[in-house]
């Protein structure tokens, strides 16, 4: 088994991450933006990570209640999953304005978008499928049946594989993007919600809300090879350096995990009820959306402390890959 993807040096990791982010997208600016869904405020706060301030707020209709978010790696499209409105809002990465509103099932929560911003996958909480979104025609072009109450969705860098956490089945399914069918499923901890695909794409992690742990899945064998206790009610994960960072809601903290040793090695107090978490392309800052505190905490992944707290909007969830470059 190999988990070397997280063990490279910090500098090496940052360089690789930065390269991966900008290769093939020369028209993107160097400054990444964070797109924070505010469920109670019906808005998306857009943070310029260079200044650490909200530079724009995209207001959605009352009752939209945005939760999930996915920024394409090239920054062209930002998809927002709105479980209450039963829609996906597409934000244009260049103008940072709403480009489309797509009707999507009964309750889209988790969402992922391919690197080019052409195809999206929205997990439907009530109808137990992944909606395939064509982001050119802005319509649902397919439905992939998955497990019960699908939550977090992640996608491989080349877009060929999609993984979804089947929360009420305590499992994670792998989907072939071409055939649009589940190829393999693995049982993980209780009620998996957020997923993280290792940069090498050899390992997948699930944050299991009810068993209070993280499952480590070896994707070659599609088997759980480790379980790490992380605290009370983990929701989502990010990786920076050779550590995992896990939002732990009832602890109002981010747990720091050594995935090799399969141990929680630290805990960082953030705002109340942290949910969404994502790593900045610099590889050394982790952004955390605090649902109850209406803010985003910025963690220095080396110093393991909060270096900035940014006020956002009411009910910040930002569940998904919420940081990406801005396309010009």
């Amino acid at each position: 088994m190999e988990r070397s993807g997280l063990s490279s040096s910090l500098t090496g990791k940052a360089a690789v991450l930065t390269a991966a982010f900008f290769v093939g997208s020369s028209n993107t600016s160097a400054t990444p933006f964070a797109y924070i869904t505010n469920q109670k405020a019906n808005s998306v706060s857009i943070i310029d990570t260079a200044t650490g301030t909200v530079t724009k707020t995209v207001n959605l209709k009352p009752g939209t209640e945005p939760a999930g978010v996915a920024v394409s790696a090239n920054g062209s499209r930002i998809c927002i999953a709105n479980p209450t409105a039963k829609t996906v809002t597409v934000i244009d990465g260049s103008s940072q304005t709403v480009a489309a509103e797509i009707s999507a099932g009964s309750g889209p929560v988790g969402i992922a978008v391919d690197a080019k911003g052409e195809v999206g996958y929205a997990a439907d909480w009530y109808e137990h499928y992944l909606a395939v979104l064509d982001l050119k025609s802005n319509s649902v072009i397919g439905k992939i049946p998955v497990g019960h109450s699908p939550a977090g969705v992640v996608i491989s860098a080349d877009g060929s594989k999609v993984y979804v956490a089947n929360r009420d089945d305590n499992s994670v399914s792998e989907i072939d993007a071409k055939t649009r069918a589940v190829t393999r499923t693995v049982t993980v901890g209780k009620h998996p919600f957020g997923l993280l695909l290792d940069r090498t794409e050899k390992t997948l992690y699930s944050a299991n809300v009810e068993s209070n742990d993280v499952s480590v899945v070896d994707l070659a064998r599609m088997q759980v090879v480790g379980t790490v206790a992380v605290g009370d009610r983990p929701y989502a994960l990010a990786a920076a350096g050779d550590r995992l960072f896990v939002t732990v809601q009832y602890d109002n903290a981010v747990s720091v995990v050594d995935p090799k040793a399969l141990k929680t090695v630290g805990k960082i107090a953030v705002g109340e009820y942290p949910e969404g978490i994502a790593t900045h392309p610099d590889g050394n800052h982790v952004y955390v959306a605090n649902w109850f505190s209406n803010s985003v905490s910025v963690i220095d992944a080396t110093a393991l402390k909060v270096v900035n707290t940014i006020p956002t909007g009411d009910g910040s969830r930002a569940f998904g890959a919420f940081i990406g470059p801005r396309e010009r």
Partner: protein
Amino acid sequence: MKKLTILAATLAFTWVGVAHAHGPSRQKLTETVEINAPPAKVWGIIKDFANPHAWMPMVASTHAEGGNAPGATRELTLKSGGVIKEELKSYEDDKMSFAYKISENPDCKVLPVNNYSSNIEVEASGSGSKVTWNGAYYRCFLQNNPPPDQNEESANKAVKTVYTESLAHLKALAEK
């Protein structure tokens, strides 16, 4: 507002309650009250996790175990009938604050919420005190399209009623 949890205790603490599926949109509620009494006096009334019937007017009696240590449990028997089972999550006497959660989702008729968690704190405010009570929870109905008595509005109304009535009673007791 943010509370630093007691890390060692939290790490050692294992959640064993029963919890069920819930809808995707969690609700939150904050109620505060200004009380013309010193914080220590107000905290003195609410600080015992085993003693909610002393200040929550809808509670008839309490069966509790474990004192004020994280992991302590209490069963609130309501005057209207029904029982709510809760568990203490963290306790900070110096900050006059504790956090707890409902450990078994109640009957929707008793309290129409799921996965309820809460914290309450007392702080100095002017010459008196301010009490802040937060709740986070889901509606009671687990599937799509809830009936009116199990939707978000009904959950919010029920929790708000508990908070406002209890805080009003606490204010009256502390200002006596």
